[in-house]
């Protein structure tokens, strides 16, 4: 939530610490601000509050006032105002702060309440942590350690429920582990707007299920797996693949569309195992689409390019750069940049094209937005091309103009940065008339036709930044090394630019000095000091452009024409 400039602040006292928090904050969030942990399961900051897990019980009280005179009642022992404590515990998630509210989270009553709740939750929970994929990131496991009583008094038989229900194509449910927090139900209803989940039966027979004949198959179904506090909802793709504590977490950005959802890439020894959302309240909250989670599969695809080739023969980078430079120096060059390249790569593309005075084309990819986290513009970084000055107007979907120039003989060499020219509308005849220099990750008709072919890195294998639809500059980091034979895009572009007379560095830190010096909008920045939550750039110079995006989460198109 973006706080208004002057929010109404309320002063509360949590475990003896005074803190001023915005009105409407609940006790869990207020306690978080003073580093007091209030455990919870069903509460989620982005979902409605139902208060059904009872884990966040706290003791609360209000300063005492004399009922008749309204004068504060003082405690003679301490000289401070007395606090009237409510004799029963209250739920922290459903209690909003009020002026003078006192909260205690360390009293015997609170401890006993938590132990009691934990004991009831564990009654029918199978203690199969050693084979549970949630182990290591399980709230129940953590809080059983932190707040449980440490041993079990339960001698009865545990419930038996279905262990592997397919709720949908990507989600598998282990009903025995479910603690009935209802986060997934609320998510489906409130965020995904696909109300298919519910609890049937009651008491200890309560079972999470889909309505018979329906499936949890919306494109955000895996968010239910993220928010499941236990190992009940599991990703069919990820379950039993890897222990989470072995995985390295790398911050990344979703390249599926111009929303630029913040993500975490989980990898081990150069292999990516899963992608999960990273909370950014200004972009994607705590969600991301299912389709974006599968993008890592292309890293290991069979069609991955792995050898530098010049005129059809295997070659090396030096020879490839020389060959490309020779082609370019002959003139009549056109550059096809990409809305999928990072800001840094687009900057280098611009320097390269400018040195050759070559026209620059971009390929737009416009689909239908889903009003949530997939926008209509499926290029993650068209705005980066605008900010870096690679392009001045929005790109077209087809390279018709380039095709006409080729037919007219004005273009003899095309340098494509990862764009498949055939898919972008050039005919095979047009392609055969030009020499193609192709930098790309996967095999396609353009890579097959290329005179000079340099394999480059996928987004998970390099670092850089994108500018999303809000003009928010967000950086992503290399999670895994690239395949053998592939060269970092920045290195190839920098060497190409240098070869045609525009010397620019390839290393991000050095490159950003050049970028900051040349592009006023990015003048104060370095790659290192760009915050992980992103930095909002000034969008006003581009307000007149008819961007393709419609409304999505945290984004409203500025111009009515784009709506």
């Amino acid at each position, binding site marked *: 939530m973006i706080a208004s400039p002057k929010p109404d602040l309320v002063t509360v006292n949590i475990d003896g610490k005074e803190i001023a928090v915005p009105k409407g904050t609940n006790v869990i969030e207020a306690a978080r601000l003073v580093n007091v942990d209030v455990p919870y399961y069903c509460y989620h900051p982005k979902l409605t509050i139902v208060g059904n897990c009872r884990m966040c019980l706290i003791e609360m009280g209000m300063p005492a006032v004399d009922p008749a005179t309204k004068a504060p009642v003082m405690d003679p022992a301490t000289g401070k105002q007395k606090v009237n404590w409510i004799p029963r515990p209250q739920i922290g998630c459903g209690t909003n702060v009020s002026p003078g509210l006192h909260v205690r989270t360390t009293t015997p009553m609170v401890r006993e309440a938590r132990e009691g709740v934990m004991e009831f939750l564990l009654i029918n929970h199978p203690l199969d942590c050693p084979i549970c994929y949630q182990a290591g990131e399980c709230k129940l496991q953590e809080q059983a350690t932190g707040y449980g009583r440490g041993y079990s008094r339960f001698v009865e038989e545990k419930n038996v429920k279905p262990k592997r229900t397919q709720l949908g194509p990507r989600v598998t449910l282990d009903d025995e582990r479910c603690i009935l927090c209802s986060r997934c139900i609320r998510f489906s209803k409130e965020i995904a707007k696909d*109300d*298919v*989940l*519910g*609890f*049937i*039966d*009651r008491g200890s027979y309560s079972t999470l299920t*889909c*309505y*018979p004949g*329906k499936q949890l198959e919306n494109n955000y179904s895996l968010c239910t797996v993220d928010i499941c506090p236990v190992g009940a909802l599991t990703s069919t793709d990820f379950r039993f693949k890897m222990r989470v504590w072995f995985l390295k977490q790398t911050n990344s950005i979703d390249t599926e569309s111009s929303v630029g959802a913040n993500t975490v890439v989980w990898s081990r020894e150069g292999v990516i195992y899963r992608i999960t959302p990273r909370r950014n309240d200004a972009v994607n909250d705590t969600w991301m689409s299912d389709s974006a989670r599968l993008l890592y599969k292309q890293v290991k695809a069979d069609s991955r390019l792995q050898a530098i080739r010049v005129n059809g023969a295997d070659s090396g980078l030096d020879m490839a750069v020389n060959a490309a430079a020779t082609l370019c120096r002959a003139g009549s060059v056109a550059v096809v940049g990409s809305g999928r390249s990072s800001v840094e790569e687009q900057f280098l593309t611009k320097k390269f094209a400018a040195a050759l005075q070559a026209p620059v084309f971009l390929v737009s990819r416009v689909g239908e937005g889903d009003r949530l986290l997939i926008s209509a513009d499926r290029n993650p970084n068209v705005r980066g091309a605008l900010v870096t000055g690679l392009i001045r107007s929005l790109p077209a979907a087809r390279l018709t103009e380039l095709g006409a120039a080729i037919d007219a003989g004005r273009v003899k060499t095309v340098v494509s940065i990862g764009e498949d020219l055939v898919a972008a509308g050039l005919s095979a005849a047009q392609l055969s008339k030009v020499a193609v220099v192709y930098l790309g990750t996967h095999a396609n008709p353009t890579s097959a036709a290329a005179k000079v072919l340099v394999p480059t890195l996928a987004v998970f294998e390099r670092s850089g930044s994108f500018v999303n639809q809000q003009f928010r500059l967000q950086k992503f980091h290399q999670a895994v090394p690239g395949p053998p034979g592939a060269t970092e895009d920045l290195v190839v572009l920098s060497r190409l630019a240098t070869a045609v007379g525009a010397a620019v560095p390839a290393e991000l830190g050095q490159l950003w000095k050049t970028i900051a010096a040349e592009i006023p909008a990015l003048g104060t920045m370095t790659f290192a000091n760009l915050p992980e939550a992103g930095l909002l750039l000034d969008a006003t110079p581009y307000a007149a452009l008819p961007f393709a995006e419609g409304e999505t989460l945290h984004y409203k198109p500025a111009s009515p024409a784009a709506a």
Partner: protein
Amino acid sequence: MNLKPATLAQIDDVITHYPVKRSATLPLLHLIQEDVGHISDEAIPWVADKLGLQPINVYEVVTFYPMFRRQPIGRRHIKVCRTLSCALVGGYKTCEAFQQEFDTGLGEISPDGEVTVEFVECLASCGTAPVVLIDDDLHEKVDVAKAQQLSAQIKSEAAKRR
């Protein structure tokens, strides 16, 4: 949904009694069960559609309450109390007698289609145990003999109908 016109009229009326349509879920399910005898698979989406809900919302309610039946039952519903007082003075024997009379098991439809016999919890008439509720009529002090007598009555009514 094959509901009687009177039921449909009642349904449309009862929806207007609540500030939000969703609140009419339980009354609607009761009306349908009274009319059809059970809540069929097609009834759930029908109610959801009527109230602007998703089927799962209605499904949750139907499965929560054991008195909503998902399967058809016999013409009459014989509910025998099995809570403490009735159990102590022969509620189980009463139930067995009904089952024998109609040659049926617990919760099944009898072969002649006349009854379904079930145990229920306390019918709040412990002083006159064992008690039996046949549809909406309470029968008190139902020992085996009275159970046979009630069964004979039901059978003779059935014979008349044929």
